[in-house]
């Protein structure tokens, strides 16, 4: 089965409609288990106390922030190279989700930082590069909005996404470099003993829940986009007939 099997929007919509409830249900189940383990079962950290529980939202959100950008870049590459009609839809649909995860990671990180480091924000390498990633998402979404012709907007956004994907490692490297230059002793050190299973399991389950949540939203957004296009086509047909 080639990637063109689902290039047919009807076929895709049918499959997406069937998968989506399962993904949504799985998300709910995983979230319930994950939240129970994270908030009730998992022990409080011996140093951080209960604030450590922020990690169970923060870390999966940060993982998803990066995952969504990779997804976006791969989908954009597929859209540009094979002109796959659904790939640029997938890229477009994943951008706001990724931006939301990035925002969530930034906000929860900030809330976690206040009790732990005593400040809402430090210009630490990791924080700074996540903030820049957030701006990359915003630029991508703004470009989609700005160009009226959907086809052209898709291609332009795909070019931008690939340029961004080449730049993400460079930005990450340069920010790390800048950080080691400007603040030698960082307040945050995540090393310490390897994470204990009682914390690792809730974390992994939460990460999985975020992943299925992403799939649910992605399918919903892609179906919405397809329906919007259909409505537009119908309107045009009505006007011309």
């Amino acid at each position: 089965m080639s990637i063109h099997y689902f290039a047919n929007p009807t076929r895709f919509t049918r499959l997406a409609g069937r998968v989506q409830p399962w993904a949504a249900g799985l998300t709910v189940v995983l979230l319930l288990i994950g939240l129970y383990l994270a908030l009730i079962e998992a022990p409080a950290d011996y140093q951080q106390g209960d604030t450590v529980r922020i990690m169970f939202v923060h870390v999966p959100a940060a993982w998803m922030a990066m995952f969504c950008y990779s997804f976006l870049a791969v989908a954009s590459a597929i859209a540009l190279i094979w002109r796959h009609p659904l790939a640029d839809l997938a890229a477009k649909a994943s951008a706001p989700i990724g931006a939301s995860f990035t925002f969530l990671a930034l906000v929860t990180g900030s809330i976690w930082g206040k009790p732990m480091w005593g400040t809402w924000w430090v210009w630490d390498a990791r924080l700074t590069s996540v903030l820049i990633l957030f701006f990359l998402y915003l630029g991508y979404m703004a470009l989609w909005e700005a160009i009226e012709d959907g086809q052209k907007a898709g291609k332009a956004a795909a070019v931008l996404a690939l340029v961004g994907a080449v730049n993400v490692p460079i930005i990450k490297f340069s920010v790390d470099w800048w950080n080691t230059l400007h603040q030698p002793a960082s307040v945050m050190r995540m090393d310490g003993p390897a994470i204990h299973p009682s914390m690792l399991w809730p974390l992994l389950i939460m990460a999985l829940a975020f992943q299925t949540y992403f799939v649910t939203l992605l399918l919903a957004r892609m179906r919405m986009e397809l329906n919007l296009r259909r409505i537009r086509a119908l309107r045009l047909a009505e006007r011309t007939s």
Partner: protein
Amino acid sequence: MKIFLAIISRDMLLAVRQGGATFLALIFFLLTVTLFPLGIGPEPAILARVAPGVLWVAALLAAMLSLDRLFQADFEDGSLEQLTLSGLPLSLIVLAKIITHWLTTGLPLLLAAPVLAVLLNMNDEGFEALLLTMLIGTPALSLIGAIGAALTLTVRRGGVLLSLLVLPLYIPVLIFGVSAIDAAVHGLNAKPHLLLLAALTVAAIPLCPWAAAAAVKLSLE
């Protein structure tokens, strides 16, 4: 090659004949740098400390503001389409435009930067590094900016969008540019930073015109 040079000389001629508009970026650069002492305060020590950063941030903004000129006029009067018929690959046409952009903004910024550095009381050791980073780094600004300019070509009032697209991509240039000067000011070796900056520019030379050409092609369809 002949066509390539012809495009550059035509664009340069246009820029010189237009006069004022060409050097607006330079005036913007001077004005922004002037704002910093007014905002931060005139203490020489503080100004000397922030001088490399201020100069680079201002140069970045000045280069970015002049980007919309890169293709806009030629796109509107149709000469960009004419140029694509010249037989020269679009990426080379784009490269010619980028070179002109650097000659009309990057080069003036480079020449003005030392004067402003004196006004900001920058440490003497930093001047060589300042000139070198500007010489190596400003071409990267024109190259990366060309992608943004090409992508926003068909967008009406694309200026704000352009800054949103381009500024995150400028961050590595800013970081290596400023750290090279900082290193030189503190008597450290500026060479690693300069080499990294050069690596950025060298990598941008083949990649950026290619990506920008792909974007220009979209708006010509």
